[in-house]
């Protein structure tokens, strides 16, 4: 069961839009951290994923375990929010 979902995005990232659209279709609510508007959180995104890319989706389960999904990766995103 989900506790929260956070997506790190930028304004120009098409894959970010796809992740947001997918979560909306699935009825999953999420918080968005736009790195263009919040550049001070870039290092947080990098630390979470180990990557310098967006989208980064952080799925926190009810038991506080976290799954970090880099990119628009439905093979990982779909089971993570199931």
């Amino acid at each position, binding site marked *: 069961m*989900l506790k929260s979902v956070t997506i790190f995005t930028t304004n120009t990232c*098409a894959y970010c*839009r796809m992740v947001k659209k997918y979560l909306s279709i699935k009825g*999953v*609510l999420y918080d968005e951290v736009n790195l*263009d508007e919040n550049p001070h959180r870039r290092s947080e995104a990098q630390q979470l994923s180990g990557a310098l*890319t*967006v989208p980064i989706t952080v799925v926190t389960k009810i038991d506080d375990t976290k799954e970090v999904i880099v990119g*628009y990766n*439905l093979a990982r995103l779909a089971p993570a929010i199931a």
Partner: protein
Amino acid sequence: MIDKTKQIIVYGADWCPDCHRSRGLLTDLNISFVYIDIDKNQAAKKKMLDLTGGRNVIPTIILPDGKILQEPSNQELEAALGVNLKQTAQDKEYIYDVIMIGGGPASLTAAIYTTRERIETLILEKGVVGGMAALTDVIDNYPGFEEGVTGLDLADHLQKQAERFGSKIDYNEVTSITIEAGNIKRLKTTNGDLLAKAVLIATGSDYKKVNIPGESEYFARGVHYCATCDGAFYRDKKIAVIGGGNSAVQEALFLTRFASHIDLLVRSSIKASDVLQEKIDELVSEGKITVHLQTKTLAIEGENNEVKRVLIEDGSSNKSKLEVDGVFVFVGLEPNSKFLVDSIIELDDIGFVKTNDNLETAMSGVFAAGDIRSGATMQIASAIGEGATAALKIRHYLEG
């Protein structure tokens, strides 16, 4: 069976996992519903309590016939609706008029035409709707937009227009196409088999790798192929861009909004349009970009999981190193046609799909349009034109 024309109402709250589950099931079953968050709408909460005799339990689901379900399991909800996911899955054996593989400009345009003709159309996309166009910052040469249009906006408009006439878009990947009795095409996908009378292949192309040491090792940690995705991580940093075609130059121009300096590493000479070349020249004179012609990039080097420099060789075989924080690679395109290698559909030497004058491939009733087609000009305007042409040819084929 539920009457899909009448509304189902789901009372729930953001924090309620079972509400998410029930909403997800309804979505998967393609059943529309109205969702009301009782934390944000006290009047609706009161109405829910009135309907349920004061039982403050969510999700509370009101069916069109007035039946009330509270905290139903998925099985209970499916039973009340008279449907189930397994049955929905079996519906996939239904034969579509046309399935379009790839959701870029060519197929979105073709879908506008086919659906307006009442030809049932399913688009399958494995990545981003809008394809490579959606990943492009600004498209300056697409007619009708005198100031240019962002790739995301163009993709959005194309998608909405295709959906307005009834196109459906599914997110999965096709792994093979075969032809069966009655000229029916079977598409194996990552989500099961689908059948169609006609198929449009519009899978486009992807950026090539440059295949040098360090490229894979530092992928997404300093080596990138999507400037609009990853450029923001290089604010006030130094970048190398590898490539000298339109894409490389355009992406380098986009990256100047973030980077303090860009080294453009060009193996031979710049082959970009005059307009782009002029823009590059301006930035070179401002000291923002340095162009290295006749320059091979030999390796990407780094330390502690970070890119630190690129090793280059100039036209006189002199090797040197450039200190950079990141590398963006745009060295050409490769076709997305691996799923066709074992089919009877003919590919050219590079892997692009061969077609006849009707845009039909070697498999009857399977057409190709856009960047994936052998001989394509790799222009969005051309892909859109080919999409329209392919739709008319598909209609003719279906009329048989």
